[in-house]
């Protein structure tokens, strides 16, 4: 398969909205946080990692997920906070794997420092969960030009839905945009470059601008040219 001017399968842009549900689980100590992490449902893990990064995307200096923030600000355990913050959600295509790593870090810390495991934090951690509602926007793209237009129209949450949360749906370490650019248009390098944009050090606006710049560069590259990147054989 070669690079296509138009993809056979269009990219369907979605709008997504999240409803936050408050659960009955809370934690006042690291031990309780561990218990909560073990027993909460996947929607809670999603809410406090994937979802919170979206709603705090403008904090590009040291905000990663709610667990790390609470351990830092309320439980006052900097080392564990750093370890939790270092988990990159882009490395996970399943919430089960992310939960396992979160649990492992907290469990390991509690084992190593049992004196801190039951120490009271300043404020409790409340486990919440996200209920995601996604609807088609009625906007599709079959070419790079149309794709660019669609990207500029997305809200922050929908951009995030396609760019970050998508890996949980795809079960791949990629995102909707890169997946379609590679599979639909055969633009492998562009897809890889898009997937490399760092969401932790960019706001959603700057990440989107970087993506648009990459798309524009690709459009210029192929303007009037017939050079095409080969799509790897399946």
């Amino acid at each position, binding site marked *: 398969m070669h690079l296509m001017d138009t993809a056979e399968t269009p990219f369907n842009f979605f709008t997504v909205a999240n*409803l936050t549900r408050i659960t009955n689980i809370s934690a006042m100590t690291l031990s309780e946080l561990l218990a909560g992490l073990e027993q909460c449902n996947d929607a809670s893990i999603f809410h406090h990692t994937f979802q919170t990064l979206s*709603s*705090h995307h403008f*904090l590009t200096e040291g905000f990663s997920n709610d667990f790390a923030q609470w351990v830092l600000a309320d439980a006052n355990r900097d080392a564990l906070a750093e370890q939790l913050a270092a988990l990159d959600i882009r490395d996970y295509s399943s919430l089960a794997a992310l939960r396992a790593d979160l649990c492992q870090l907290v469990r390991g810390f509690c084992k190593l420092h049992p004196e801190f495991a039951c120490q009271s934090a300043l404020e409790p951690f409340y486990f919440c969960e996200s209920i995601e*509602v996604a609807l088609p926007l009625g906007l599709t793209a079959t070419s790079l030009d149309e794709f660019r237009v669609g990207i500029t129209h997305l809200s922050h949450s*929908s951009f995030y839905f396609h760019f970050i949360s998508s890996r949980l749906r795809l079960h791949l370490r990629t995102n909707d945009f890169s997946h379609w650019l590679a599979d639909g248009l055969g633009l492998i390098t562009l897809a890889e470059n898009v997937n490399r944009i760092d969401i932790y050090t960019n706001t959603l606006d700057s990440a989107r601008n970087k993506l648009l710049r990459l798309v524009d560069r690709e459009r210029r590259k192929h303007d009037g040219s017939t050079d095409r990147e080969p799509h790897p054989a399946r």
Partner: protein
Amino acid sequence: MTAVQTANRIPLDDYAAVVGAGEIEELRALARPLQGRRVEMVNSTAVGGGVAEMLNRLVPLAEDLGLPFSWDVITGGEDFFQVTKAFHNALHGAPYHPQPRDFDIFREYQQRNLHRLPLDAEFVIIHDPQPVGLIEDRTNGKNHWVWRCHIDLSHPNPAVWNFLHSYVSRYDGAIFSSPEFARQLPIPQYLFYPAIDPLAEKNRDLPPEFIANVLSRYQIDPLRPILTQISRFDRLKDPLGVIRAYRIVRRYFDCQLVLAGGSASDDPEGAQVLKEVHRAAEGDPDIKVLELPVWAPLEVNALQRASSIVIQKSLREGFGLTVSEALWKKKPVVASAVGGIPTQIIHKHTGLLAHSVEGTAYQIRFLLSHPEIAARLGERGHEHVKENFLITQNLRRYLTLFLSLGGAV
């Protein structure tokens, strides 16, 4: 029936300049499956206080999306509002021993309002404890009822909460402004942040001359630091604590304090607190105690914009929308870590939190000494509000709730 006619309409598309055209297009997409499905909002006052202010803007915007929203206000005598004010304070943890007569008065007015209000929309949203008993009228399965609690329920008076619990547990869901306020309930509990309207008179950009005029009218010196707390004259907002913090700061900085607010129509205690504040401020010409008319949004806006630092030293707080108002104006904020305030003030990222008079004074001194840090906090605070606490986000949350409850997706 007391149906509220909302203020002048601002077309939803006007918000595109603030939040982006994409956000508005997506609100329209989310509203599409809900076209024509009716929503009824009920609260206890049409003017004064954050709830009325929010509904005044939310209802017209929802109508612009093609959703028939109505807003009704319950009525009650002085006896009713005295009871509900006592309930309000007790739910915030104030000492109170309710008498059986108090509960009777509460029930009696619920019954009277039941006969006056339609309560037949597909989605009925009841705001705060005053009208919570209207659930009595609910026919099971006919429509969706959700209780929107705007107040801090983290330490409620058990007698009052037990009484209200019997009503709340019959709803399809409850909405709180912070997870801390959620209670043990047999119904789903949702988290909705209250919101400000960036295009409302209270928040929109103002010409510098207007701000200068307001300062001149109230004899505030624009050349010296201005510390401001905007809120009702209510004990829970701790205006006397603010004066004490200001007096500590005054030892280090030649600054002024502005305490500005008005009394809501359901707040009979306001006059007494105002008197105490005047007494505490006596003899200090740099403390301006301004009793603003209920609708003086432009003056509030100007005072916030003119401020060097905005304070919100509440002892208890539902959410404290004045914090978001100040952050929207890129102001550094020093606020108490109570209620919904830590959601808005992420300590050292979007503002500074304090837990005491002394702590409040220290944080103010720190920001007056480090204006560059103050400016950075203000910038981040603005982004935080844009992402999470604007009315367009609130509308989005309601749409998501209706889609989720109504099975439209």
